[in-house]
């Protein structure tokens, strides 16, 4: 099915090096140039230069440029080979196309260098700066810079094109080396933290340079391990996975239990060996996992696009804050007690459910797109109300509510200064959310949600009270979000209206969609990758240098996912069937799963041979 098929003898012969789709090649080249110029002017090379990948050879800043010609040089000649189609043999044509794309791209950067040197456009374009020029020319003069990028572009384009030509093993080796180096560099904080926690400081010291970035011997080591794993280890992993999937009945249940158990153990043990910063990161990820699991019920299971989801996060946060803080708004009557966090939590559940009903009821009969905008409006109204002078006596207005105590468990107080404890607290609620999602999905309610997502009017005609079912999804999602808000308040110790901007809703939506709508693992993976690596709306991730660019990347990612892989990284089987209905049917047909009308009558025509 894919272009990675081993070249076999029944392929058509290689096409000549000049037998190109020139228009496409030029377009890709210009696109490369444009993307490179945009990335440069977006300040990525300069802004990310401080993040080293391999000290002192390579920084994230240069990586932000280098991947472009390689990726587009590869993409220009990649073609979808469908079942039954015969592919051409790869050869010089692919190399030439990649080379030209890279060359044009490099030319774009060269042009940018010349332009920066001769004109001053710093007025609108803030990054039109000498630093950019210095970085692009390596301080060696214009001619050197232009020459370097032309050559580098060509080389990288060629490298991209070559990926089509070389054998699968070579491709595997190179990809493994690159990926492992990148991964070890990105996860530097975590890895050195873990190795410290398990008394292996020497390993981290060998791998990493003092001020960040892999050391050269570390990079080589990582690459070798990666290559070895790709060549020999991966087969075993795949086999293990297959044998796990082929388990049935009792054995399967037991295997599942073991998996679950090890996940739980890992969740408990891992934070113990991790340091403060990494635990803080985990706690943030956990908060977003909780939020995303809630939104997943609303968007993923019931198919309601709720853009005002942050409102429930805010309700949870503010309710907890007002009930527990010693510094809440002055308009509250004296008799209102300062409660314990757990008491507040009960009120949070009630308030979240009520606000879910209150916001949900007017919108639930609206069509999907109207609903999205109106919920967005509600999210904004709630924030404006918290911010306003009118309710300022109760909510603290722009000053918010501060002095929120942590969660006093008797033996320990869970608060922001102890991220490990916060993480455990979040993990408990995430476990609860996972359990809720998992139970609901395969229950009568979950089936009703599925039916509504597929065809609302038919679901209604089949006896499902769609209004109630959708409201229930809304409320369950609201309560989970409010839990997250309650923990957030205890963690940060203060809540402000600015913590609950629409951006939060959008980021959670991106997490759910990138992870895979309707899939619990997908949502967790999405939160871990996006929030953990790039960071949340206000929280830094592992790549703290990216904070300037993460929203840009989120936006691009959302579009990319919708266009190329709407089912997300870890798809829900059903969702992906919905989104790829035709391909799925074609596939099923090829496998002979599609039944035909009355086979006895159609005789031998009836049984379509599996492909």
């Amino acid at each position, binding site marked *: 099915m894919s272009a990675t098929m081993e070249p076999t003898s029944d392929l058509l012969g290689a096409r000549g090096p000049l037998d190109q789709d020139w228009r496409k090649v030029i377009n890709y080249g210009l696109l490369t140039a444009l993307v490179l110029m945009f990335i440069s002017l977006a300040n990525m090379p300069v802004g990310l230069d401080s993040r080293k990948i391999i000290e002192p050879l390579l920084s994230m800043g240069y990586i932000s440029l280098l991947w472009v010609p390689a990726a587009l040089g590869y993409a220009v000649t990649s073609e979808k080979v469908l079942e039954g189609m015969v592919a051409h043999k790869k050869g010089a044509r692919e190399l030439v196309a990649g080379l030209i794309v890279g060359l044009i791209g490099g030319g774009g950067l060269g042009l940018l260098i010349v332009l920066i040197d001769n004109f001053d456009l710093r007025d609108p374009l803030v990054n039109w700066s000498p630093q950019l020029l210095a970085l692009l020319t390596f301080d060696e003069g214009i001619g050197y810079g232009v020459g370097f990028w032309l050559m580098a572009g060509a080389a990288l384009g060629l490298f991209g094109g070559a990926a089509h030509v070389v054998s699968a093993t070579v491709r595997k080796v190179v990809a493994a080396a690159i990926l492992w180096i990148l991964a070890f560099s990105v996860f530097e904080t975590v890895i050195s933290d873990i190795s410290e926690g398990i008394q292996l400081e020497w390993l981290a010291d060998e791998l990493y340079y003092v001020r960040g970035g892999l050391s050269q011997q570390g990079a080589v080591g990582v690459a070798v391990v990666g290559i070895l794993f790709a060549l020999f280890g991966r087969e075993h992993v795949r086999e293990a996975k297959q044998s796990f999937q082929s388990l049935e009945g009792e054995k399967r249940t037991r295997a599942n239990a073991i998996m679950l158990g090890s996940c739980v153990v890992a969740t408990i043990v891992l934070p113990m060996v991790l340091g403060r910063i990494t635990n803080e990161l985990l706690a943030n990820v956990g908060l977003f996992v909780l939020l995303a699991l809630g939104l997943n019920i609303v968007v993923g299971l019931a198919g309601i696009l709720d853009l005002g989801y942050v409102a429930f996060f805010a309700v949870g946060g503010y309710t907890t804050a007002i009930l527990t803080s010693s510094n809440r708004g002055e308009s509250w009557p004296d008799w209102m007690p300062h409660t314990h966090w757990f008491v507040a939590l009960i009120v949070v559940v009630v308030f979240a459910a009520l606000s879910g009903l209150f916001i949900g009821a007017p919108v639930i009969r609206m069509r999907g797109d109207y609903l999205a905008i109106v919920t967005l409006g509600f999210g904004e109204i709630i924030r404006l109300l918290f911010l306003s002078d009118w309710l300022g006596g109760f909510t603290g207005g722009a000053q918010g509510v501060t002095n929120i105590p942590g969660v006093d468990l008797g033996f320990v107080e869970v608060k922001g200064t102890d991220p490990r404890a916060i993480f455990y607290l979040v993990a408990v609620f995430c476990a609860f959310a996972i359990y809720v999602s998992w139970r609901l999905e395969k229950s009568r309610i979950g089936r009703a949600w599925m039916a509504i997502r597929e065809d609302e009017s*038919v679901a*209604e005609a*089949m006896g499902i009270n769609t209004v109630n079912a959708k409201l229930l999804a809304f409320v369950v999602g609201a309560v989970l979000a409010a839990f997250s808000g309650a923990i957030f308040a205890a963690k940060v110790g203060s809540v402000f209206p600015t913590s609950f901007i629409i951006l939060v809703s959008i980021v959670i939506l991106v997490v759910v969609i990138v992870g895979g709508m309707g899939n619990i693992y997908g949502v967790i993976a999405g939160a871990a990758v996006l929030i953990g690596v790039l960071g949340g709306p206000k929280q830094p991730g592992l790549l703290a240098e990216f904070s300037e660019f993460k929203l840009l990347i989120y936006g691009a990612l959302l579009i990319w996912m919708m266009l190329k892989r709407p089912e997300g990284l870890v798809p829900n089987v059903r969702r992906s069937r919905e989104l790829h209905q035709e391909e799925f049917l074609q596939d099923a047909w090829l496998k002979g799963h599609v039944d035909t009308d009355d086979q006895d009558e159609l005789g031998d025509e009836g049984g379509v041979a599996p492909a």
Partner: protein
Amino acid sequence: MSGERLLTIKNLSVTFGGLHALKDLNFHVDEGEIVSVIGPNGAGKTTFFNMISGMVTPTAGDIIFRGESLLGLDPNQVTARGIARTFQNVRLFANMTILENVMVAQHCRTKQGLWGSLFNTASFKKEEEEIREWGEHVLGFFGSRLIGYRLEQPASVLSYANRRRLEIARSMATKPTVILLDEPVAGMNPKETEELTGLIGKLRSEWGFTIVMIEHDMKVVRDVSDRVVVLDHGETIAQGSYEEVSTNPEVIEAYLGRPAEEAS
């Protein structure tokens, strides 16, 4: 074989933007009847079904089911009262499995909510089991076609005829009194049609359903109906047994147009 009066429709009218889709329609069904509604395309047959099932609100008239008016009820409430339907252009939940399609249709007959699902209570397990059993039971009505390994397959892989069958099974799963079948044999080959005709008879004789059916295939109409109602331009132009209706000059005119010599 007619029993108690089940469904009475009085002076039912609906207009879409000044256009009369149905005009002053009177209609009734007795328990255990099989009534066919026929008429040329655009006669308002599907609108008629949509109105009974609550998807379209009539502008005037009344629909009385077992002594209770259905006006103003949502489609799910109509289904809960015992009227199930199929759709002319088969509308299954294509990405749900075949079993899930019939399971979800029992929604209004079951009641386990949040509590039961979350804590997997004994009553929840029992109900799930019953839903499953009833689902397999109604699927079994079509022999081996929809059961066995098919249960876990998505509905979208089914052949056209099997989709129609599954849709009927889905309407049966709602435990109705009356089933509204919208062109049940459309697109089926003669053999399948013949088989399904037999099954429609069985729906009454073995399962006790009352059936109202829109159908174009006159052979099916003749074979199963107790009574035939002919609609044209939103009005009832004839009613009676198949023989009476098929010889009625007005009906022939509606289908074939007016004979040339009479047109002036």
